[in-house]
């Protein structure tokens, strides 16, 4: 930490390296464009858990390539921006690491060809975004908001996992390419639960109503994170999923109704709330919600117009929103405030930022000749194909007009007019922070003027990934038609809203005070859950080892006893055994009696050790030297551990009453009896040797080993062994931590 503080430039180096990495990835993806546009998606697959039908597979088709290009391309600009914005932060290296991990998770999510792969990357984006939102972890609000975002999206992720498992059950495969090539699941008996679970996942991730509340709170993150995660990428994960599964789950009444309702409510509500904000960043956060709602709304449809509009608007939004977030960060950086009331006339001091803001803002407002104009025209053309079209068109019109007004607030108001009174004199941002907004803003203009540039990619997505026969055309001038008239209405309404925004803000605020908020409800829910956990812990966790053991043994005796009574197995008592085995058995039983001595711990430990060694001897007798050696070593070490721990305890003082002792004796007797009967019942059955035979036959031919036990451990079941090793190590590290803390406390 200290070395970081003295040489902040080393952090910057990581920022540049990460920017280069993202740029290199973008180039790799760009090289795939011709092949994907030619109609042949790229498939990459490695076996992961073949016995479960799970693979680490990636699929690069039109849809995933658009996302991958946006993620890596905008990612490169964000890394550059972050280096200028917070490169001298003492923990900038850590920040870059988190952001890079996030970018890779996001790429994995959109490129995944396997449902489980997709799920794993989905959860990774939740975890990395938790780390990024809570990056300013000294701030309690940041921690709380990070936790909220993680709980909401991770809970959605669990629903999604259940949905995916049902999908694999219904379609017979975890392979997305095969599921998409199949006939669709719309008529399957499991369709309803699959749809509900998948939509829960998608709506929480993409912050659709009623799960929208976490997104504005996520603005606690540093601005580069907001610009990247909460506008261009992570929140698009849910939208990506909806688009991806549209061919197999879409076009049913339930799909259309749910997506239309959630999308429309989110879009209109968010754009109203956006106008209310005076903090530029929060205002942008709400407009992101509006965009996500709009995309969800258009994914409800099944027509080429609706789907083209959804995909085109997705690209449009990513470009201008990332640019505007970076502009807001530059304003914050240059003036020390994001409050719109204190800003004005910054264009003179920050000409480049102003230019980028003007370009991105024009795209957001949907002015020609920006790509935003084309996107808006497509939205109007598409909304005519959605049902109920009048309602949808009216909703989209209101939302777009509000966007127009907010674009004015964010991109116009701070830069022109009378100078405000910012905390310090405005200065232009460094080049690293200008590259992103300027390039993205300019791209909005390039793609607007050259509307045909995006067409092949949109075609590949709408026809190749979404299963339509054709995509709608992207045109700067589509003739005099309904969308043109609606655009004119949008501008008129938007201008009116912009001019009356101060009065509207008061009205919306007054209205909101009368509605119950989502955030207090969330906090109450968490408080209630915490109380519930505390209550059940008090109930179950008495803190007395004796009671925990008694509970475990009662359950064991009940389960075994019930099984024995219900199954009534045949028990053959065969007492013929060599004398030596009888001797070992007697020795073991004698050890067991030694553990009953209530006065001396050392004799108890010795008794347990005797039993263990007796069992080891029996293993030797029946030809399992491996197991016997292991048993001996384990017995030795546990005697040592018991010795260290128990001999330091105070002497045994019997405090149990007679009836308690009687109850314990009855419990011990019951467990012993049930266990004995179970073992006898098992040995009375003929031994099933088919697994043994399999390993005997294959241990040398498949795994080149003669010691079957070892071959099973390190080869056939290596993954299980790895899990066990992890458990062993974590358990001892946990014990280490507890012991050291206790030691430190006792020294105080």
């Amino acid at each position: 930490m200290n070395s970081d503080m003295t040489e902040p430039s080393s952090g910057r180096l990581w920022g540049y390296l990460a920017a280069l990495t993202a740029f290199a990835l973008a180039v790799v993806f760009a090289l795939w464009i011709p092949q994907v546009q030619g109609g042949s998606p790229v498939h990459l697959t490695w076996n992961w858990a073949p016995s479960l039908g799970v693979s680490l597979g990636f699929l690069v088709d039109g849809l995933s390539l658009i996302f991958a290009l946006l993620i890596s391309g905008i990612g490169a600009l964000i890394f550059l921006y972050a280096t200028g914005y917070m490169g001298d932060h003492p923990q900038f290296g850590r920040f870059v690491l988190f952001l890079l991990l996030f970018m890779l998770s996001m790429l994995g999510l959109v490129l995944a060809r396997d449902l489980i792969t997709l799920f794993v990357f989905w959860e990774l984006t939740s975890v990395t975004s938790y780390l990024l939102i809570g990056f300013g972890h000294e701030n309690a609000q940041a921690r709380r908001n990070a936790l909220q975002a993680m709980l909401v999206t991770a809970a959605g992720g669990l629903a999604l996992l259940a949905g995916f498992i049902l999908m694999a059950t219904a379609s017979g495969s975890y392979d997305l390419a095969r599921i998409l090539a199949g006939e669709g699941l719309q008529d399957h008996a499991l369709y309803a639960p699959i749809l509900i679970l998948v939509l829960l996942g998608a709506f929480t991730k993409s912050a659709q109503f009623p799960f929208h509340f976490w997104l504005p709170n996520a603005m606690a993150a540093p601005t580069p994170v907001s610009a990247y995660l909460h506008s261009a990428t992570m929140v698009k994960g849910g939208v990506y999923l909806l688009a991806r599964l549209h061919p197999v789950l879409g076009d049913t009444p339930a799909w259309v109704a749910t997506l239309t309702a959630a999308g429309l409510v989110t879009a209109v509500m968010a754009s109203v709330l956006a106008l209310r904000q005076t903090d530029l960043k929060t205002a942008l956060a709400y407009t992101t919600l509006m965009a996500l709602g709009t995309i969800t709304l258009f994914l409800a449809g099944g027509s080429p117009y609706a789907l083209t509009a959804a995909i085109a608007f997705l690209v449009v939004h990513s470009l201008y929103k990332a640019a505007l977030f970076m502009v807001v960060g530059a304003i914050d950086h240059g003036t020390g405030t994001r409050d719109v009331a204190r800003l004005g006339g910054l264009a003179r001091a920050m000409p480049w930022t102003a230019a980028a803001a003007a370009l991105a803002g024009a795209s957001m407002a949907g002015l020609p000749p920006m790509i935003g104009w084309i996107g808006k025209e497509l939205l109007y053309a598409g909304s005519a194909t959605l049902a109920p079209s009048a309602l949808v068109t009216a909703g989209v019109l209101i939302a777009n007009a509000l966007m127009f007004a907010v674009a004015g607030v964010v991109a116009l108001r701070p830069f022109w007019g009378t100078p405000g009174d910012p905390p310090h004199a405005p200065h232009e941002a460094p080049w690293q922070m200008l590259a992103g907004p300027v390039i993205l803003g300019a791209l909005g203009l390039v793609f607007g003027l050259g509307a045909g540039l995006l067409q092949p990619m949109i075609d590949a997505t709408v026809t190749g990934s979404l299963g339509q026969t054709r995509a709608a055309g992207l045109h700067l001038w589509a003739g005099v038609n309904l969308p043109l008239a609606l655009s004119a209405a949008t501008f008129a309404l938007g201008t009116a809203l912009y001019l009356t925004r101060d009065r509207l803000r008061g009205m919306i605020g007054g209205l909101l005070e009368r509605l119950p908020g989502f955030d207090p409800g969330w906090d109450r829910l968490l408080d209630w859950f915490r109380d519930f956990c505390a209550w059940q812990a008090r109930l179950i966790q008495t803190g007395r080892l004796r009671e925990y053991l008694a509970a475990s043994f009662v359950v064991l005796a009940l389960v075994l006893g019930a099984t024995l009574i219900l199954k009534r197995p045949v028990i053959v008592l065969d007492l013929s055994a060599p004398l030596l085995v009888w001797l070992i058995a007697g020795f073991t039983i004698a050890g067991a009696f030694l553990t009953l001595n209530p006065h001396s711990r050392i004799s108890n430990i010795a008794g347990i050790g005797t039993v263990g060694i007796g069992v080891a001897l029996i293993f030797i007798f029946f030809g399992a030297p491996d197991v016997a050696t292991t048993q001996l070593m384990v017995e030795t070490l546990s005697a040592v551990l018991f010795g260290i721990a128990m001999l330091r305890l105070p002497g045994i003082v019997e405090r149990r009453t007679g009836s308690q002792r009687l109850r314990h004796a009855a419990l011990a007797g019951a467990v012993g009896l049930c266990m004995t009967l179970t073992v006898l019942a098992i040995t009375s059955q003929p031994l099933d040797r088919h697994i043994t035979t399999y390993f005997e036959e294959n241990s040398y031919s498949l795994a080149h080993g003669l010691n079957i036990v070892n071959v099973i451990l390190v080869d056939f079941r290596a993954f299980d062994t790895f899990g066990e090793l992890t458990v062993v190590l974590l358990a001892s590290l946990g014990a280490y931590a507890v012991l050291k803390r206790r030691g430190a406390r006792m020294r105080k």
Partner: protein
Amino acid sequence: MKSLILTTGARLLIALFLVFSLYVLLRGHNAPGGGFIGGLIAACGFAIHAFASGVAEARRALRVDPRVIGVLGLVCALAAGLMAWPLGFDPFAGVWGEVAGYKVSSVLLFDIGVYLAVVGGILTLIFALEETL
């Protein structure tokens, strides 16, 4: 509690334990033994050393913090498991090859990982118990 007999005996025993543990580890693929048993034997050796000469002395003899040994073992096992992936096999499948006439495999690396994880895990626990209780 220092016992001259135990201290002197432990010096001889620990070497024997360690050599024997390596022997058991290496022969484990074809004869009784393996990384788990080997690791237990080695841990017993150091446990005896810790009782005879004290934990500080045993830590010095070990040179490396047992926690590091354990994590190193986990890394070895993971590396052995994932090694198969880029070579075109399923993850955690054994990969075999021949170097100068000797058969070598990722399985041995995995078993060494088991050995180290067991040694590290158990000694972490024993040393911590001895030091704090």
